[in-house]
């Protein structure tokens, strides 16, 4: 059974279209990533699926229940971690967890199994007020609270934003272990590198889905010639490349510049051309596309594309 089904969901706020006819399914035990920048519509989608907001058009169901007619059943069966830290800052770690267990009519003991791996990491601080925890620990506590009633579907809205690299890695390891318990997870993130940790992803921008597939398949489907160029003169190289006739797009990518071209070339041809105009180049090589390359390619790149 599909844990989440969306059919042509649209949402407007006044004249602003937040979501444009979104459709996809999430299977049981699947980690489905919603990948896109701020303002893409990710949080709106979460609020519709968690029955906190009504769509203008389309249908959606969660755990087999319609989001409008059966919203009460859905609320019992889902766990939701909103983008903003929403636990009680003036309650302790333990009190928060026991509060959430109680309102769902259960106890910490009853579902301890599910949260144990995560909870042991914050248990040494169980008497500490939630407001005084570090970012990484707050996030672990919020996940425990979202899980304590044994939900069938877990909604995590940007759980790793603003969290350091170590805590982010640990968090994704926890999600993998939840997946093994057959919980479906919809997780949003602005970090393109986290996309590869999902079973399937939807790239979303300006309320529209650009593409849905497994991250591996998206990489395989990217057929455009892509080169990584290393130089100490990033700014002048970018300027020159954008004026070069063979360039489709040229973008800074960490210590490299990523160049896509309309036709394939040998890396040395590009190197020769850059050196001909007097730009010292350390290296030009064929690059393996990342999800970020794909996202930039699919979305509107007017400002960066030549001509």
């Amino acid at each position, binding site marked *: 059974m599909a844990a989440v089904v969306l059919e042509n969901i649209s949402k407007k706020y006044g004249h602003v279209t937040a979501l444009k006819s979104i459709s996809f399914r999430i299977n049981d035990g699947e980690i489905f990533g919603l990948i896109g*920048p*701020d*303002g893409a519509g990710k949080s709106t989608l979460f609020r519709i699926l968690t029955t906190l907001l009504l769509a203008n058009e389309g249908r959606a169901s969660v755990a087999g229940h319609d989001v409008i007619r059966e919203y009460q059943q859905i609320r019992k069966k889902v766990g939701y971690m909103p983008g903003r830290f929403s636990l009680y800052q003036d309650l302790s770690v333990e009190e928060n967890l026991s509060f959430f267990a109680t309102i769902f009519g259960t106890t910490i003991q009853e579902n301890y199994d599910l949260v144990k791996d995560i909870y042991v990491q914050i248990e040494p601080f169980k008497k500490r007020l939630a407001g005084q925890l*570090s*970012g*990484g620990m707050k996030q672990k506590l919020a996940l425990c609270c979202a899980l304590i009633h044994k939900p069938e579907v877990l909604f995590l809205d940007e759980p790793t*934003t*603003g*969290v*350091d*690299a*170590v*805590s982010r*890695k640990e968090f994704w390891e926890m999600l993998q272990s939840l997946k093994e318990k057959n919980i479906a997870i919809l997780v949003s993130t*602005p*970090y*393109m*590198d986290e996309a590869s940790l999902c079973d399937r992803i939807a790239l979303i921008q300006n309320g529209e889905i650009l593409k849905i597939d497994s991250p591996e398949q998206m990489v395989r489907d990217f057929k455009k010639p892509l080169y990584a160029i290393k130089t100490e003169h*990033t*700014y*002048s190289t*970018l300027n020159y490349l954008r004026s070069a006739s063979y360039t489709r797009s040229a*973008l*800074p990518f*960490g*210590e*490299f510049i990523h160049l896509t071209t309309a036709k394939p070339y040998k890396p040395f041809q590009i190197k020769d051309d850059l050196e001909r105009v007097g730009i010292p180049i350390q290296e030009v090589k064929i690059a393996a596309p990342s999800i*970020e390359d794909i*996202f*930039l390619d699919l*979305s509107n*790149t007017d*400002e*960066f594309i030549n001509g």
Partner: protein
Amino acid sequence: MDKRNAIEVEGLTKRFGDFTAVDAISFQVAKGEIFGFLGANGAGKTTAMKMLIGLSRPTEGMGKVAGFDIDKEAEQVKRNIGYMSQKFSLYDDLTPKENVRFYGGVYGLSKNRIKEKTREILKELHLEEVANKPVVALPLGWKQRLAFAISMVHDPDIVFLDEPTGGVDPYVRRQFWETIYQVAEQGRTIFVTTHYMDEAEYCDRVSIMVTGKIEALDTPEKLKEEYNANTMDEVFLKLVRY
């Protein structure tokens, strides 16, 4: 102080009671360099940076920024650096023009100089059309570049950027890094903190702080080699986790 350096720090330490937040760090940043200052949440980045920009006095050690002693000449340091924070401190209900005027006034620029600067910034960022609309209506990427330009309204030699790229739209980030490259190419020094490890790879050199100490400092390329890693993310995890 070596004339080629914009920042020199030796044994810089900050203690709060028994707790050592910054533990005897030493490093230099060359003029025109893009220097990444990295660390996990709570590693001491912000405390260290506050000392460098003259907002917090060191418990021990010395530091020079833009040629001035960070302890004894903190006021001079503040006048000679630019600073842009995560929240990019623009006044949302003022227009781009008014924001430039306000910050120009704070730094004591003459009326004529403010006029000149306003024209220059609006032109360079293509903000002429929205010059008289409140900043709140601008897209994130424009705001970010406006805040960056305003942090340099008094033509400082060094700009401190404190986690400047929150929001993480892939384009906005790239546009912003291009602006940083442009500024660095003009000879300005950029000191940037971030916890996006992929962003570290845009820097000329990076330092990584772990529990108050600088545990690694080199070019991204050399660090990846040394730690046998493909990305800065891996370097960071190896350093911080084990």
